[in-house]
Structure formats: structure tokens, C-alpha cells
């Protein structure tokens, strides 16, 4: 018990407390003192008049709103299509959909960077070959596409885990209940909504929460592909940028921590809403 608590308190709980504390100070990288000066809510008021932050917040919001429902719906469909299959086929599909997760964010980003490439990327070649587009599209450099490109990659790396979870949840649904529903004349669709859906609700809830957290945390993709350009800045990236990149605000830890606190609050609020909605059903 004790060793684990040391790690947990030392490297998770303590930083959490310091984070909240620092968000009320003007601490920065160049300052020799550990904590800087107390500035009360100045960081927070500044945040909400910072255009870049508000844009980043909006983009993060778009990513979450788009990816969470699509990931859930997609993985539920795939899971319900494969969970009754023969064992080997089912696990083959599970492995395949999990592959992008295992490949690792950097390797995945590297290959997508190539596929999206303006000159010799496969997207432009295929679309031009099919005469869908006339000229090469600069996928990652164009405000209209860049964010959607990021969302697409995020999607492929997000569905693996939900599919595994749904397959096992669907496998645990009481078969006799479904048979009873069929005997009573229910169609497959009715049996699904009335019998299976309520039973897999806890799994759905868990998936909603982890997908939300994952989408909020989307970082590697943005740092490696666009560096927050082309309208893809997110809160996560902006925290990193404020804290470590050379700008006029370089090393402004207090400010970055205030963003971190806002991000954590946003995630907590969304999770709470999801829990509440799920409970009501």
C-alpha cells in the first residue's frame, strides 16, 4: 500500500495541488523563486479576453462534440456486428481496430503526415485519379480542412478500446431475455433498444467518459502536424505553447496552469453531465 501511495501522492496529487496554486500566481520559467507572486484571479480574467485561448477552447469543443458521438456510434455498430462471430474472426477484427492505438501516436502521425502531404501524399493522388478534385489540396495547411484531418486521425486511434469494451458487454447480455423478447414478437431492432441497450448502459457511460477525456487531450497530432496553425489550436496545445515555446509569454507557468484548471473543470463538468443523463435513462 505505502509504496504506491508515495508515487500516487508524490507524482499525481501533489502536482494537482501545486497546479491549482500556481494558477493564482505569476510564476514563470525565468523566475528563480518557486512560486512567483500572488495575483489572485488575474490569470483567469486575462484568459477570457485572450482571443487565441478562446479560439483554442472552441476548437477543442468542436473536436469533442464531433468525435465523442461518432466514436461511440461507430464502435457500437462494429461491436454488434462482430460479437457473435466465430472466436477467431471476432478477435481478428478487434485486433485490427486496435492496431492504430498500439502503433503509437508518433508513428501514426508520421504516416498520416505523409498521406496528407500536399505534393506526394496519397489523398491527393487518389482523389485526383478519381477526378474528384482538380488541384492538390494542402490538407494540413488549409483552415477549411486541417481541423477535420486531425479529427479523422483521432477517430482512427480512438475506436479500438470502445470496440473491445462493447464486444464484452454485448457478450454478457442475458441471452434468455433476448429470446423472451423474440418470443413476444419483438424485431431485432426492438430487442436491441429495449433489452440490450439498457444493459450495456454502464459500458456506454464509461466509453463516453474515456472518449471525452481522450479528445480533450489530443496533443501529439497537433504538435507534430500543424503546431496549432491552420485553425487547429487546442487548449492542450496552447498550454504547452505558453509554457515551453518561445513567445512573449514563454515560460508563463501561472497562466498555463490557469488553462489547465479550466480544462480539468470542463472535463469534470462534461463527465458529470454524462453521468446524470445516463442515470436518468
Amino acid at each position: 500500500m505505502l509504496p504506491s501511495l508515495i508515487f500516487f501522492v508524490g507524482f499525481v496529487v501533489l502536482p494537482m495541488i501545486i497546479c491549482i496554486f500556481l494558477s493564482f500566481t505569476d510564476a514563470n520559467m525565468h523566475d528563480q523563486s518557486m512560486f512567483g507572486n500572488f495575483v489572485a484571479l488575474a490569470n483567469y480574467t486575462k484568459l477570457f479576453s485572450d482571443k487565441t485561448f478562446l479560439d483554442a477552447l472552441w476548437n477543442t469543443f468542436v473536436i469533442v462534440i464531433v468525435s465523442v458521438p461518432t466514436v461511440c456510434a461507430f464502435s457500437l455498430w462494429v461491436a454488434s456486428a462482430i460479437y457473435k462471430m466465430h472466436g477467431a474472426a471476432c478477435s481478428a477484427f478487434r485486433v485490427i481496430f486496435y492496431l492504430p492505438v498500439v502503433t503509437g501516436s508518433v508513428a501514426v502521425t508520421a504516416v498520416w503526415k505523409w498521406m496528407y502531404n500536399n505534393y506526394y501524399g496519397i489523398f491527393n493522388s487518389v482523389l485526383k485519379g478519381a477526378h474528384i478534385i482538380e488541384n492538390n489540396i494542402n490538407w494540413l495547411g488549409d483552415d477549411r480542412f486541417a481541423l477535420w484531418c486531425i479529427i479523422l486521425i483521432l477517430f482512427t486511434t480512438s475506436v479500438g478500446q470502445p470496440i473491445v469494451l462493447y464486444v464484452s458487454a454485448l457478450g454478457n447480455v442475458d441471452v434468455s431475455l433476448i429470446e423472451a423478447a423474440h418470443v413476444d414478437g419483438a424485431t431485432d431492432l426492438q430487442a436491441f433498444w429495449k433489452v440490450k441497450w439498457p444493459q450495456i448502459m454502464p459500458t456506454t457511460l464509461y466509453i463516453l467518459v474515456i472518449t471525452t477525456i481522450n479528445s480533450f487531450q489530443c496533443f501529439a497530432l497537433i504538435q507534430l502536424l500543424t503546431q496549432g496553425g491552420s485553425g487547429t489550436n487546442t487548449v492542450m496545445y496552447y498550454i504547452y505553447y505558453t509554457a515551453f515555446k518561445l513567445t512573449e509569454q514563454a515560460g508563463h507557468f501561472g497562466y498555463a496552469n490557469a488553462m489547465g484548471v479550466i480544462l480539468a473543470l470542463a472535463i469534470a463538468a462534461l463527465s458529470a453531465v454524462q453521468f446524470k443523463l445516463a442515470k436518468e435513462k
Partner: protein
Amino acid sequence: MKSGVERVTAYKVISWIVLIVLAVLFTFPLYWIITGAFKTGADINNVKEIVWFPTEFTLANFAKLFERRTAPLFNIGTLIEGPIVPAAFRWLLNTVFMAVMAMVLTCLTAAMAGYALAKKRFAGRAIVFGLIVCAMALPKQVILIPLLKEMSALNLIDNIWAVIFPTVGWPFGVFLMKQFSEGIPGEILEAARIDGASELKTFFTVVLPIIKPGVGALAIFTFINSWNDYFMQLVMLSSNNNYTISLGISTLMAETSIDMGVLMAGAALASIPIIIVFLIFQKYFTQGITMGAVKG
């Protein structure tokens, strides 16, 4: 009835087709990495037509990758230095070290803590468990800056341990181990105590064998996550000799003139080992993911 059967099969056929198309699309990036790593520059830069399969296999990309940077294979203290090898080997070695250490420490500490949380009564137990669940929902990156300050206070900046410790502290493992430990029958523990076994002996000879499947799942889960984590490594590690393979590849990516073949060679080097590990242990892995979700 008959039409019902036909409709079901039609739906089944369509869903099979869609599934197979999706499976191909999902494997494609990996295929593209592996084939890209062996393609010649002419194949990669061919803008006239897409080269789906390398026209000839070349190792030039790997050769270029290895030439680019070198590093000693290992350092012990500041005095002993290993032979100079391509930096990618050093990066791989660092990554393996990091992932194995994170795995061993996480399993050991999490198994003890999970067992204690499930089977012992002590003051503050509910608070600890509540904190663990809350922390699991917290984005890791939020605590990044304080962590960095801590690490610099501990003099661990640019040290691989700065990445390992926060991974070990991450409470998912404790949570998972608690789920598994709930299933240990109280009578066995009672019997061990009556036999006069010490607390530590009980843990290693009675508890650990029972929760072994759980520990296996956690081990593989931690290993893969730690191998593929990028953010923590990016912030904590800064010198060539301490890079992990992910960081190494990402620095390659940042160099704008990089050719895609070399980049794919790097990506292949970073991903193939972990994919092999995953395929070997995937049974435990899926078990681990599922167990973690039971009763969230």
C-alpha cells in the same frame, strides 16, 4: 418468416463487406509505414502514379536513418560509455528500459495497494479510493508544469526516471488491481494469518498467485502505454542520448527536409516491436481493458 430470414442474411452480407472495407482502411496506415520504409526515393516521390507496393526493396532508408545521428549505446555514471552506435539503437534501448521499469514498478505497487484497498479496513480508505477515481478522470497534461518543477527540484530533468515515476503514480493500475482483489476469498487470508504468515509473505504466496491474471493484464497495458506515451517524454527529456524512440522520430519529423522514406523507417522501428508484443499478449490485454471498465 422466410422473408425475415432473407433480410437478415442480406444485412449480414452488407455488414461483412463494410467491416472488411473498414478493416482494410484501418490496417492501411501500418501497411504504408512498413512498405514506405523499404521504398526507394523514386517510388516515394512518384507524383504521376501511386506506388502501392515497392518496386524494389531497399534498406537505404534505414541506412540513412542510422547515419543521421549517433550516440553511445549506454552510459553508466559519467565515466563508462558504451560503443558509439546509431542513435536509434540507443533510443530503442532507452524506450525498452523505460517501459520495463514502469511495468515492473506499476505492477508491484499497484498490486499491493489494490489488495489493501479491497481487503483491509483502515482510516481514510474511502478518501483514498475517491481520490484515485477522480485522478483517473483528470487529464495527465494538466499536472505537467508542477511535475516539471518537482522533477527539477529532484534533479531528474532530462532523466528517464522523470518519465517513469509519473507513470507509476498513475492510479489506473491501483483501480484495476482493486477490482481483481475483490475476488480473493477472505477465508484464505484468514487461514494464512492463523498459520502465522507475515503480511508480506501472505501477499507474495497467497494474494499474488490469485490475482496473477490481473497483474498480467496490467503489465502489458502499462508496457504498451508507456512505450507509446509521448507528451511526458517530450517535456521531460531533452538530450539526444536520453531520447526515447518516439521522441527521436518526432525530432526527425520536425526537420522539414526529411524524406518520407527515412521517416517511415523510423516509424517502423518504433512501432513494429510494440505491435509484436501486443499480438503475443493481446488476450491479456483485452482482458485488462475490460476489467478496468467493470463498475466505473
